[in-house]
């Protein structure tokens, strides 16, 4: 008799979990795509069959399927396409995560601070954010490249410029909505210090927005990185980045179609997955934000 209730309890737990998962209507295909690419990025050295940068002129211009030690073929320099694709996932993840995380931390901090303090500080920060948002990203990026010269720092900074401003704007809006509510006032009356109020009482109310804004921006940041790499403003030529690979394939597109096709497909599928996942996240977290895009 003692076993039955536990069993029942366990099975209801399992049932609740499966029902809960089903009710969430998780977007499975985007999740699988994202997981696969994250695995590629993290385990690139283990997964890639060849060195992505190794030049091997004897094995150059192999079409996909011609030689099974190079399933996706090789490029003009004989570099293995599959390995370059896998390392390309790593490059995309590294650069966009760097820009996104730094932008998120700075933007969130400034948004919290500006929203809570108000006054001239708020006005100044928001003017800067408006200036950063009110300008085509690529133009801002090109100005950064002119100042710093082309390279990873330049594209990360260029991406950072648009990212922090989005976060600051959205987070500030959330802060304004909660900062005059009773629980904040009570905390202030009981003598809680400002940093603690912001961190413990206000920040948790902005987490939904934080996730939604991140989900919108990831795809845009990856596309921007690809565009800047394509234009030759990012990493050095020959590096395993999808944008650079498309650029290398462009000039020989009529002879070697696979060089530009595969990296472009990878970017498109990844950004599609991110957009679908972002839509789902937005709908399930906050229906009010649905029309943000």
């Amino acid at each position, binding site marked *: 008799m003692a076993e039955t209730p536990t069993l029942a309890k366990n099975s209801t737990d399992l049932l609740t979990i499966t029902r809960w998962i089903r009710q969430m209507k998780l977007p499975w295909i985007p999740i699988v795509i994202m997981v696969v690419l994250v695995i590629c990025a993290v385990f690139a050295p283990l997964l890639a069959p060849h060195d992505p940068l190794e030049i091997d002129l004897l094995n150059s211009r192999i079409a996909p399927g011609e030689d099974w030690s190079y399933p996706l073929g090789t490029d003009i320099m004989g570099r293995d396409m599959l390995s370059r694709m896998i390392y390309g996932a790593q490059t995309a993840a590294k650069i966009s995560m760097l820009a996104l995380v730094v932008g998120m931390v700075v933007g969130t901090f400034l948004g919290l601070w500006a929203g809570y303090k108000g006054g001239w500080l708020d006005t100044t920060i928001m003017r800067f954010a408006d200036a950063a948002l*009110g300008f085509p990203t690529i133009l801002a990026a090109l100005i950064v490249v002119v*100042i710093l010269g082309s390279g990873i720092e330049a594209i990360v900074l260029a991406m950072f410029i648009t990212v922090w401003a989005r976060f600051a704007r959205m987070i500030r809006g959330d802060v304004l909505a909660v900062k005059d509510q009773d629980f904040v006032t009570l905390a202030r009356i009981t003598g809680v210090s400002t940093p603690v109020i912001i961190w413990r009482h206000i920040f948790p109310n902005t987490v939904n927005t934080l996730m939604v804004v991140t989900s919108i921006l990831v795809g845009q940041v990856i596309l921007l990185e690809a565009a800047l790499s394509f234009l030759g403003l990012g990493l050095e030529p020959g590096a395993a980045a999808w944008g650079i690979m498309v650029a290398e394939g462009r000039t020989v597109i*009529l002879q070697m179609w696979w060089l530009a096709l595969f990296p*472009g497909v990878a970017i*498109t599928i990844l950004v599609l997955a991110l957009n679908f996942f972002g839509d789902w996240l937005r709908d399930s977290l906050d229906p009010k934000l649905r029309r943000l895009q």
Partner: protein
Amino acid sequence: MQRFILIRAFQAVATLWILSVVVFASVHLTGDPALYLLGPETTDETYAQMKKNLGLDRPLIIQYLSFANDVIHGDFGISTYSGRSARDILFERFPATLQLAGAAFVLSLLLGIPLGILSAVKRDTVFDNAAKLFAVIGISAPPFWIAIMLVLLFGGILGWLPTFGRGGISHFILPVSVLAWAGMAGYVRLARSAMLEVLDSDYVKFARVKGLRENSVIWKHALRNALIPMLTFAGLTLAGLLNGSIAVEVVFAWPGLGRLMLQGITSRDFPIIQATVLAAGFFYIFTSLVVDILYAYVNPRIRFE
């Protein structure tokens, strides 16, 4: 309304001014233009002479003022790469980009809005899902890559269309389609959601109850009100067009502003960089000003913010 226009115009001028300072500073932060022109092996004497010729021996603020004065009079200096006036080169290239961006803008409106409306009217059908997928691919695929794939398909395999340079109408088809696809995605989504909202409203229900024909309900009663939010979006699309057009111009060898800007950056041709960045910035700031004023005109609530 007048007050709104004044404030907004002042903001536009201020943004342009900040842009001019950034552009001026970028030239002075990236190294010494005199040294760049002369190369590393130069005598102190010629170096000093070059600095004097370029006016680099004067205080920065004076240099900025004379730079600003020149820019206002349309003088961006002589291109160090081609030896020609940067203004002349700019005026040769700008129309090509305007035609491309303008055509793409119109096409994205003409295709995007009807597609979004039909998508809303036929909600949750195959058509709706296909339209949504088409739109989301437009914002997910890099425009430069779509451009290359179209070159492969229509230029290489089928051989139907020219794939580089600027010429007759046929030269426009591929680059305009690429840019319009990216721009259209937003209109499809926006038109769809705006239309869904309007279709749910009381006055549309009333129009139906009154016995009006479905076509007249959708295209006359619902559409007019759904169009308002789309106007704000026009500014965003313009930014998207500028963003996409640089890479697309590169792929199609389109002799426009974007490619000129990129050439200027790779050859460190500062007069060209200044001219192109300021021109693109001016174009963008001016059009967003016009869009904002139009929007305030249709939506009075904005004026009082």
